[in-house]
């Protein structure tokens, strides 16, 4: 594929190697904290794990929180189906993430950083430890009081939810907490905590290196900057791509589809399935007036061609959620079980087709009553698949 034929604008920030991290760290921690926070706020960077909370505001709130002990946590519990970009960042440019954690620690007043690495990425632990050793050596040299350690997960999707992650770090079952209080006030060990996705941290490195404008100039209103996309499924070129936010799904499919794309799942199992007829009216980014229907994503983009059964897709997601639901709240624990049993019964003809409407109501109830994002987001994929591909659920 030659570059000039690309419809989408490629961006190359995240994976560009640089030998400047020592200089950038040194330079950044000698700037006024308020100026750094303002720089981050003006870049309009939003969390790249999927939730999209403004990063500058997160750091600001934590810097203002009362408490002598604070923490910086890098969320590397990348478990959303169809997402695999964070692994690549930690493999290829770990020093950007470490530098960003230290800068964050400097700004908010934290001396301790933790990388929560999913158990599935155990092979990354050793190389990452070596990178941390080298990094710590330099921190000592410049008298920067900041340490980073790795904490290994053990196979639990829910631990990517920030408060479940804190519970796990504290040696408990990964069961989400109620919010509020938010982590900026009460996070790990109930202390003020910044918790950011791996990619978010890597973007702050770019912002502190080149300034906010370079980042802000990319993307569209409310969806600034670039984003890594993990592309998989029925595509001739699966992989990781850094693209500008705000692209239309149609352009995305033109570039990555196999010519027969029937639907795209944006945002993984907890995201939305978009059928072909809605490609042109759907954009990838955060909600904003300019781009119509916009779907946020942690980067997971899965393509399906006309050979794929959307029933099988939903069945696979629901089995995933049923197993990964932590089980503490009833709407999610029972809801996931009942949705899965329900679509199976309709498919087998044991239940009439209108039963699907009851299931849709159930998923709506889960959206309102589940304790955390997992249970709340099951309705996203459930409703978007059932509503757009109802016949496939029945026949």
């Amino acid at each position, binding site marked *: 594929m030659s570059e000039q034929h690309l419809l989408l604008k490629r961006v190359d920030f995240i994976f560009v190697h640089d030998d400047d991290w020592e200089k950038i760290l040194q330079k950044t921690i000698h700037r006024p904290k308020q100026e750094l926070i303002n720089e981050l706020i003006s870049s309009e960077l939003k969390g790249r794990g999927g939730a999209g909370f403004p990063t500058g505001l997160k750091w600001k709130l934590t810097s203002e929180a009362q408490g002598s002990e604070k923490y910086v946590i890098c969320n590397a519990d*990348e*478990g*959303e*189906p*169809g*997402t*695999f970009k964070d*692994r690549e960042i930690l493999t290829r440019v770990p020093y950007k993430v470490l530098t960003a954690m230290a800068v964050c620690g400097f700004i908010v007043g934290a001396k301790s950083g933790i990388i929560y690495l*999913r*158990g*599935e*990425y*155990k*092979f990354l632990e050793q190389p990452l430890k070596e990178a941390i050793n080298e990094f710590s050596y330099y921190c000592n040299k410049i008298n920067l009081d900041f340490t980073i350690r790795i*904490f*290994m*997960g*053990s*196979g*639990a*999707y829910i631990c990517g939810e920030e408060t479940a992650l804190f519970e*796990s*770090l*504290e*040696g*408990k*079952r*990964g069961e989400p907490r109620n919010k509020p209080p938010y982590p900026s006030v009460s996070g790990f060990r109930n202390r003020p905590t910044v918790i950011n996705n791996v990619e978010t941290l890597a973007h702050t490195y770019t912002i502190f290196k080149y300034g906010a404008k370079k980042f802000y100039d990319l993307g569209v209103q409310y969806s600034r900057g670039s984003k890594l996309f*993990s*592309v*998989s*499924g*029925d595509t001739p070129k*699966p*992989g*990781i791509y850094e693209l500008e936010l705000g692209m239309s799904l149609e352009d995305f499919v033109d570039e990555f589809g196999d010519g027969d794309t029937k639907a795209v*799942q944006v945002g993984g*199992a907890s995201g939305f399935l978009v059928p072909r007829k809605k490609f042109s009216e759907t954009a990838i980014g955060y909600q904003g007036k300019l781009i119509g229907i916009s779907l946020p994503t942690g980067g997971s983009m*899965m393509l*399906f061609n006309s050979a*794929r059964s959307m029933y*099988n*897709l939903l069945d*696979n*997601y629901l089995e*995933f959620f049923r*197993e*990964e639901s*932590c089980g503490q709240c009833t709407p999610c624990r029972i809801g996931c079980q009942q949705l899965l049993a329900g679509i199976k019964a309709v498919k087998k003809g044991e239940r009439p087709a209108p039963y699907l409407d009851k299931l849709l109501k159930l998923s709506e109830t889960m959206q309102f009553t589940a304790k955390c994002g997992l249970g709340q987001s099951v309705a996203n994929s459930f409703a978007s698949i059932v509503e757009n591909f109802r016949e496939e659920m029945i026949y």
Partner: protein
Amino acid sequence: MELHRRIVELADLHGRTRESLLPILQGVVEQENFLSKRSMAEIARELDLPAAEVYGTATFYSFLEYRKMGKFIIRVCKTISCSMKGKNQIILTIKDMLKLEVGQTTPDGRFSLVETNCLGWCHKAPAMVINHEVFTDLTPEKVRGILGEYMKKEI
């Protein structure tokens, strides 16, 4: 005695607070391949925690096996991308070659076969891990080659 000594060593290394629990459980699984009821009871005693808390925490995490497992645990990804790209054929190949079902361990204690949720290799599906080693872009032939190598390993 052996197990007790190992748990004490792990507690010396990671500490005896609640926050040490996961690293200690992981350490035991690393050595024994699973957490027996006895090892969980020993850990509870060493950390001065209720055994039910230790059991409840351990069984929450899918990599902290609490049933006896083989030396090499094969985890095949069953999430959508891998499922679409031939996961079933991979499972069939393994079942055929090792003469076991999903969830079982070979009589010689060498292999266990389980299915697992998204491993994060969707762009190189289908994928599996054997203990911590990752294998991607699998085909039945490739799987036969990989298992052939593992069959020769010392245990």
